């Protein structure tokens, strides 16, 4: 049987309860346990091999780039944990069958539980570190789901979130640690990592690795100071607490330390961190457990304390300590799981977990009480029970410590203190619940639970007894094999005998018992003492911290992302400047060697007009109409400049675009305030001016530097091939419709899209319609001045003729579809201006949307036409023809393409302007004071 089935079967099993939930509770429980039971059988089937010292492995490829394989190994440690996970898991399934109320969704619960089981199995069986981490995080996630199972309860949600946050953070640290290990070792393969002890310890990253891995382990195993999440995870249903928060998940951290024990331990750093953390956790856990009035709270803190104990053991520098740790893992799992289940029974049958109300239950549920008392005794370390054995080993190991140097004597002393409190809270669990008078207003009258609800407890308690009395037979092999996996080598001699004679550990145990009794007897004093301190609820503090963090982030974010476009733009410009200024500094020689053109008066005049126009626009930008007029000058001069520098096509295009833009701006200005209020302070003005000048300076400098350097470009090709290959003498036009026709196709698409977008913007726009101009003058009543109207009509055919002319000559002379389209559009706009929307609407039946569509279609189909000749898209064709009477003429596919351009331009321009016009005509109000 391949190992992969061990986690895979439960994984498949997550679906089972969802499917069988409707068939009834018992059947659901049985079917749910089927696949995990099979898994357990597989593990048991392999157990003899493993116990005999072999390590089973199984590997499937997965993501090579990540060095992530589906790699499983079953060694002693894995076996031990797998047995715990599957064994206790099955018991929990049985127990939960009775625990859950009919209201609870059993399918969901089991599904989460099995998911968790899979995750745990994955961790303990992983032979690949990344894979281990994957399952590690899965436990956090499934535990989140389980804790928040009763999601309508606030504490469940909060507890789940807290657990997820803390363990999630640990998970991130663990990932970093694992990646570091992988980087150092060069592999995530556990075998190779375990064989690279020296390499890791000697690498400079060892401290980082250690800290990161331990962070992962400590958060998961609720070690101080990350312990606070665990008690709040008790909001989960009790079977979950029994399983996750005592037996399995919290042990994942311990498992991790045990896993990495051969690689990471053995240094002072390890010993110091691990043992001190363990010690502190042991003490705080034990101390606080005593004061919890909630039954599960007590158990939770006791769990923390025991986890601290195991951690402390792992942090001791003797091999026997590691063995003791493994041993205590087993023991703690059994007695704590049974205790939680007992607590669950009590809660379930009496309706309360408050020990101030729960009293004298012995009378009501003697059988359960007996079981609970045995388990609690194991927890306290009473002889003949399993707890006693591992605790003895623990005490004995504390005596051999030298990690703390001269202060090493503190370890056994403090360990004994821990023992004292452990006895005290165990006593409280027994006495306060089962004796100590009569119950105080419990919601229900307690009674014994259903038969099979007790069965899991019985099994676990029996195990406590068996291990306690016959440790060698029951557990010897497993312990040995697990310990050897932890130590990766020979296990030291140890004895699992019940009686070691009168020695110091026994004395410590005795002190613990007596001390525990004394303390419990005087608990009133102690409770009063503890009551002086305001109880710091970790949940509240945690929530508050998170809230503060979020509020802080919101504050920062609101400052950063303050919704001010000016700010964003400024940042962008400064960023640009910062990026560009470095290379500019390196530009030692601003002027290149290209001879410069002489300058004449005409150019000086042009430059003066341009500059003055631009500056006037800036200076008068608050008087918008004037700014528009000065902007027109700039546009005009720019086109004259193009003409001056031998670019007539550009001049034509710039000119027509400029006029349409100004018309658009005028249309917009009608609905906008006529003036810009003065908002910027002089300081802001100066700042903005400085930024603009910086950018302008950079651009100007770059422009100058470029122009004064010679250029070798690909343009010669165009000049050489325009006539022969493209069939036109206007090289610019041939580039547009042929060499780079694809650009043009994109460009007219942009135009078409813009028109569609603008149509969307205009649609359902509610406008502020000014009834008069900025000074409150009402508008003239002369909508369509007669002379303008008449002349415009007269000029229309002429303008169309010109546009045809410009269109046809484009290929050889300046012109082309775009300019022609704009001329046509402008001519029609002129009709709109002079004669009005209604006039045109009645007379011009032109669907501008279709015009855009057909323009684009013609252009695209022209391009597609070349496919018929086996040529790539947009391959052009042209030829010269001769017809009698007509003479020589040229036909070119480029003209068809240009026709597409022409139509699109007309359609787009008119769709925009005509719709804008239409919209406003219908909604002009009579007279409002708005915006005067």
């Amino acid at each position, binding site marked *: 049987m391949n190992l992969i089935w061990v986690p895979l079967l439960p994984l498949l099993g997550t679906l089972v309860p969802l499917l069988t939930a409707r068939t009834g509770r018992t059947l659901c429980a049985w079917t749910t346990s089927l696949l995990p039971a099979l898994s357990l059988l597989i593990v048991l089937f392999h157990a003899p091999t493993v116990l005999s010292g072999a390590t089973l492995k199984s590997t499937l490829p997965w993501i090579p780039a990540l060095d992530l394989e589906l790699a499983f190994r079953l060694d002693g440690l894995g076996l031990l944990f797998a047995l715990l996970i599957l064994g206790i898991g099955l018991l929990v399934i049985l127990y939960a069958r009775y625990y859950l109320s009919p209201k609870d969704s059993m399918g969901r619960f089991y599904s989460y539980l099995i998911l968790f089981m899979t995750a745990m199995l994955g961790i303990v069986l992983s032979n690949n570190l990344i894979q281990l981490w994957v399952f590690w995080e899965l436990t956090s996630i499934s535990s989140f789901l389980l804790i928040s199972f009763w999601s309508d309860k606030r504490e469940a949600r909060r507890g789940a979130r807290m657990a997820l946050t803390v363990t999630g953070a640990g998970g991130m640290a663990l990932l970093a640690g694992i990646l570091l290990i992988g980087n150092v070792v060069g592999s995530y393969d556990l075998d190779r990592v375990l064989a690279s002890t020296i390499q890791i310890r000697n690498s400079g990253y060892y401290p980082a690795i250690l800290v990161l891995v331990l962070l992962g382990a400590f958060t998961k195993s609720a070690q101080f100071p990350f312990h606070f999440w665990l008690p709040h995870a008790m909001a989960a249903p009790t079977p979950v607490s029994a399983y996750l928060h005592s037996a399995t998940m919290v042990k994942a951290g311990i498992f991790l330390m045990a896993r990495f024990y051969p690689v990471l331990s053995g240094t002072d750093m390890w010993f110091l961190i691990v043992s001190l953390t363990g010690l502190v956790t042991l003490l705080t856990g034990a101390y606080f457990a005593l004061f919890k009035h909630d039954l599960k709270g007590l158990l939770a803190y006791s769990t923390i304390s025991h986890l601290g104990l195991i951690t402390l053991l792992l942090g001791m520098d003797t091999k026997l300590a590691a063995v003791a740790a493994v041993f205590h893992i087993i023991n703690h799992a059994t007695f704590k799981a049974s205790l939680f289940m007992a607590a669950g029974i009590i809660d379930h049958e009496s309706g309360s977990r408050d020990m101030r109300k729960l009293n004298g239950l012995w009378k009501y549920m003697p059988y359960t009480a007996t079981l609970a008392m045995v388990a609690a005794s194991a927890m306290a370390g009473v002889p003949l029970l399993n707890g006693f054995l591992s605790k003895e080993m623990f005490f004995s190991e504390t005596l051999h410590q030298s990690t703390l140097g001269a202060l090493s004597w503190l370890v056994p002393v403090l360990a004994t203190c821990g023992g004292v409190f452990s006895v005290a809270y165990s006593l409280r669990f027994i006495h306060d619940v089962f004796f100590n008078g009569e119950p105080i207003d419990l919601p229900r009258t307690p009674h014994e639970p259903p038969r099979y609800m007790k069965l899991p407890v019985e099994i676990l308690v029996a195990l406590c007894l068996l291990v306690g009395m016959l440790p060698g037979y029951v557990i010897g092999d497993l312990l040995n094999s697990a310990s050897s996996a932890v130590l990766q080598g020979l296990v030291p001699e140890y004895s699992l005998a019940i009686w070691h004679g009168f020695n110091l550990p026994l004395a410590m145990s005795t002190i613990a018992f007596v001390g525990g009794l004394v303390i419990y007897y005087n608990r009133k004093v102690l409770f009063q003492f503890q009551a002086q301190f305001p109880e710091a609820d970790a949940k509240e503090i945690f929530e508050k911290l998170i809230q503060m963090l979020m509020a802080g982030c919101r504050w920062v974010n609101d400052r950063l992302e303050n919704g001010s476009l000016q700010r964003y733009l400024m940042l962008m410009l400064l960023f640009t400047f910062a990026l560009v200024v470095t290379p500019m500094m390196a530009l030692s020689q601003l002027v290149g060697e290209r001879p410069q053109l002489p300058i004449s008066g005409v150019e000086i005049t042009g430059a003066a007009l341009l500059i003055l126009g*631009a500056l006037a626009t800036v200076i008068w930008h608050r008087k918008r109409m004037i700014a528009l007029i000065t902007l027109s000058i700039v546009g005009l001069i720019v086109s004259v400049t193009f003409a001056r520098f031998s*670019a007539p096509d550009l001049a034509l295009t710039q000119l027509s675009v400029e006029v349409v833009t100004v018309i658009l701006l005028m249309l*917009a200005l009608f609905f906008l305030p006529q003036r810009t209020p003065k908002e910027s302070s002089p300081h802001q003005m100066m700042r903005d001016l400085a930024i603009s000048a910086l950018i302008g300076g950079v651009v100007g400098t770059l422009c100058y530097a470029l122009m004064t350097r010679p250029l070798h470009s690909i343009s010669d090709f165009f000049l050489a091939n325009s006539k022969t290959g493209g069939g036109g003498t206007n090289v610019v036009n041939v580039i547009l419709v042929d060499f780079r026709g694809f650009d043009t196709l994109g460009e007219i698409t942009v135009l078409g899209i813009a028109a569609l977008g603008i149509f969307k913007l205009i649609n359902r726009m509610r406008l502020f319609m000014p009834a008069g101009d900025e000074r409150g003058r009402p508008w003239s009543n002369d909508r369509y001045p007669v002379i303008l109207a008449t002349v415009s009509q007269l000029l229309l055919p002429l303008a169309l003729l010109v546009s045809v002319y410009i269109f046809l000559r484009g290929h050889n002379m300046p012109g082309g579809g775009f300019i022609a389209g704009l001329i046509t559009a402008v001519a029609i706009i002129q009709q709109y201006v002079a004669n009005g929307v209604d006039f045109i609407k009645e007379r011009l039946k032109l669907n501008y949307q279709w015009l855009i569509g057909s323009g684009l279609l013609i252009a695209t189909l022209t391009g597609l036409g070349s496919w018929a000749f086996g040529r790539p898209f947009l391959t052009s064709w042209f030829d010269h023809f001769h017809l009698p009477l007509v003479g020589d003429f040229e036909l070119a596919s480029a003209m068809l393409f240009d026709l597409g351009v022409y139509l699109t331009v007309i359609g787009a321009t008119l769709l925009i302007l005509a719709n804008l016009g239409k919209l406003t005509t219908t909604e002009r109000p009579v007279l409002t004071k708005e915006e005067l």
Partner: protein
Amino acid sequence: MEMAYALCVGILTTSGIFLTLRGRTFPVVVGLTLLSYAVNLFLFASGRLGIDDAAVLQAEATNYTDPLPQALVLTAIVIGFAMTAFAVILAMRARADLGNDHVDGRLPTITEESTAKEKP
């Protein structure tokens, strides 16, 4: 000549950007238009300037203005036009939807000082 040309490009850029940094949509659009003039001149100049060059193929001509940047500028002009048109109408829409013409859609909290200045 190149110096004057570069100066013009620089000043157009400066003016354009300064206006783009104003808080109201209309000056911003005007600024963008100025900026696009600067861009077009700049892009055109990347093919270097020539006064006496021929614009179309001619038998006797030897010097031509670099046609490629011209074609690029043409494309840029058209695209710039489309974009400006969209921005203009968007400015109107913003005014219509948000009730003011501030680029952020909300009027800045005006301090005492600036209102005092605004009154006369």
